[in-house]
């Protein structure tokens, strides 16, 4: 009835696969997601199962991924149900006389409120312009293809501003990070423009790199992200983690 268990044969087949299954390999090859959708090869599956049996941390990851998948299905189903439930009720409401009266009343109130807010904003912007600059937050993405993809293009604009670029530190954890901005010039070596050290991940484990627009001008740029572990000796260099490119236009 059962498949014959050749203890040594069964184990040897997955031995090579299990030896390379560290955290980086598992994440880069989406082993967790592929296990849950049952698309691993037999060798990979056997090695992965052996791995998670003895790792509470990997089991946590698996169970979190399983519940994430379930949660996303539930959220999508709820959203779809919400849309189909609401649609037939909206039409008759918009056509009713009560709706017309209520809408007119709300319009009058909102006109009054918005005109007073407009005056207030004008007054505040006069006060603030002397010491504050607008901040633009940009999640920089890794993109296919060459440097300066259109996806990471930022507009300089006329007024001074501050760009805050959100950088992904990757899977491994470091004590702190360093980001360096280089200007890319096809005719010369990249020129270092801006550097921030001692960075730590914040919201959603992202690193926030602030760069004032005054140091940038139209062209292509590169950010090199590096990591540092406190236990490393002083002569150990930073470890290079990622390179992101972006383009500045007028």
């Amino acid at each position, binding site marked *: 009835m059962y498949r014959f268990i050749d203890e040594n044969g069964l184990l040897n087949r997955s031995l090579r696969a299990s030896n390379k299954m560290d955290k980086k390999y598992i994440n880069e090859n989406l082993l967790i997601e592929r296990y849950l959708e049952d698309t691993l090869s037999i060798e990979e599956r056997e090695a992965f199962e052996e*791995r998670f*049996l*003895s790792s509470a941390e990997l089991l946590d*990851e698996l169970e979190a991924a399983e519940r*994430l998948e379930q949660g996303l299905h539930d959220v999508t189903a709820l959203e779809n149900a919400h849309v189909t439930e609401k649609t037939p009720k909206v039409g008759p409401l918009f056509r009713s006389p009560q709706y017309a009266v209520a809408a007119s009343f709300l319009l009058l109130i909102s006109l009054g409120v918005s005109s007073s807010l407009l005056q207030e904003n004008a007054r505040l912007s006069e006060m603030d312009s002397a010491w504050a600059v607008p901040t633009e937050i940009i999640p920089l993405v890794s993109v296919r293809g060459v440097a300066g993809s259109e996806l990471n293009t930022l507009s300089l604009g006329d007024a001074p501003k501050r760009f805050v670029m959100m950088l992904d530190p990757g899977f491994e954890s470091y004590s702190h990070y360093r980001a360096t901005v280089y200007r890319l010039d096809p005719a010369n070596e990249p020129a270092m423009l801006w550097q921030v050290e001692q960075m730590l991940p914040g919201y959603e484990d992202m690193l926030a790199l602030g760069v004032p627009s005054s140091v940038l001008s139209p062209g292509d740029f590169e950010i090199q992200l590096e990591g540092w572990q406190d236990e490393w000796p002083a002569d150990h260099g930073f470890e290079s983690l990622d390179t992101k490119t972006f383009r500045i236009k007028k």
Partner: protein
Amino acid sequence: MNDATHSEERQAANDLVSRMQNGDQAAEAEMIERYSRGLRFLLRRKTRDPHLAEDFLQETWAIVLVKIREKGLDNPGRLAGYLCGIANNLTLGEQRRVNRQRTTVNSEIVALIPDGSSNPFRHVSRAEVCTQVHKLLDDLKTERDREILTRFYVREEDKESICSGLGVDSVHFNRVLYRARQRLKSVIKAADRRSQFRVVS
């Protein structure tokens, strides 16, 4: 995943098997405690039936204990792999068998198997997870990342087509999945910790 390196795991497994062969009952309890959560997860995925999974978990332990007590293992360092093999074969056998003869309940083994409800990932309710996933999607900074999660997990599109459709590379894709998982993991654990507080009057 760095909580038990390969060599540490093999050392621990060698030690457990050796002690069990010498009749150490505490080692048997340790083995069951150490591997039950993983085996339960594996069996639940394979059977899609939590009750059947519990039956197979018990049966796996019965088979393994008899084998180790009587003959030991040729490769004790690979105990985890051997356990997976037994569990997988039980589920394969179930698919082939219509009237399966269940092993009789071994109350000694049942008492040793840890209770699965202590696992926060099983304990936190589906509604709570749904709320947290909804919040997680709302908090994503780009619509693109939300789309990656939905297209991959819900519409079950493959990674390659999602990446080419959205113009993102494999690394960015992997990280969106990784971060979403980490975020959910931490909120589930936090929700589980909160639920353990009781008002004492």
